[in-house]
């Protein structure tokens, strides 16, 4: 096969794959709905945050636990960490909160420090609160039996 025909066939195959991708993506409805990227859409209603509740079950062992309460207005800066005013080892008992695990005291060389390590100080880099937002794509993920108990 000469070069130009091979090139034409490759291009045809590529567009075929691309259009297939596009039609697959068309079945998933995102926050934009079915609108094209250059169309203007109305902003979707804001999902309310989950109210204060019991601790949420984890899906895998290393998962940073989800925050089961609202965190509106809770600030973390170099002067104070609002989360730690309840969740630190000194405060958790009085606050009735879960204490941070000892992994939070380790620096990246696994040295154990006298206070929360800087790399674990900004809680919301890993821990998030929950809103009533269902997954966009259905899935059949199941935690391992050791965690779910089933």
């Amino acid at each position, binding site marked *: 096969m000469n070069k130009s025909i091979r090139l034409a066939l490759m291009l045809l195959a590529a567009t075929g794959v691309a259009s297939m991708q596009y039609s697959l993506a068309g079945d998933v409805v995102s926050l934009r709905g079915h609108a094209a990227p250059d169309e203007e859409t109305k902003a979707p209603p804001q999902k309310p945050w989950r109210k204060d509740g019991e601790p949420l079950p984890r899906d895998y062992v290393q998962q940073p636990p989800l925050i089961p309460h609202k965190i509106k207005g809770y*600030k973390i800066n170099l002067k104070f960490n609002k989360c730690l005013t309840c969740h630190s080892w000194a405060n958790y008992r009085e606050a009735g909160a879960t204490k941070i695990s000892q992994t939070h005291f380790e620096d990246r060389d696994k040295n154990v*420090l006298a*206070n929360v390590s800087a790399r674990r*100080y900004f809680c919301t880099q890993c821990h998030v609160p929950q809103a009533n937002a269902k997954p966009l794509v259905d899935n059949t993920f199941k935690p391992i039996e050791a965690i779910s108990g089933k």
Partner: protein
Amino acid sequence: MADNDTKHCTGFISCLWNALKRPSVHYSLGVLLLAGFVAGILFWGGFNWAMEMTNNEQFCISCHEMRDNVYQEYKDTVHYSNRTGVRATCPDCHVPKEWVHKVVRKIQATNELYHKVMGTIDTREKFEAHRLELARHVWKAMKKTDSRECRNCHDYDSMDFTEQGRRAVAQHSKGLEEGKTCIDCHKGIAHSLPDLREVDPSAVVGSK
């Protein structure tokens, strides 16, 4: 006295003083009393009106020390903007509502005028340096009055625990048992917490 009638007054002050010392010749007691009564109402009303002019958010943030520091922090909080739009502004929390306590606080506030003139906290850095001390003043005052200003709006006995979240129910019931007052737990509700290094080192990064 007969002497007073014959004295000559020279300056304005001595004339005024002479007139005030003499009993009234032309006006009856009733008229004088009524005039005094009306003047009293006017002056008392005027005094309170002037005092209330210093008792609103607009007046407080007319000083840049307040507007650029604590007011900006307050704008992020629930007392500034919330679901129902019911607000608590500067005097609602910092100035007592009862008249006697209010006047005492207003007299104490002359200290703030002094520091405004001296420029004690007129830059961001100076304010941050004093923040812990200023916060401690307010916390101490609130603790001493059993959070009287909070209770202007938040009536503990009217709290509906079925509407509160899990943490709030637990902490409020426990707080009642332990004899705590609002400010013991709700520090930082309206303005940024100060550097907690000295207050609670477990809540700050780095060790002492």
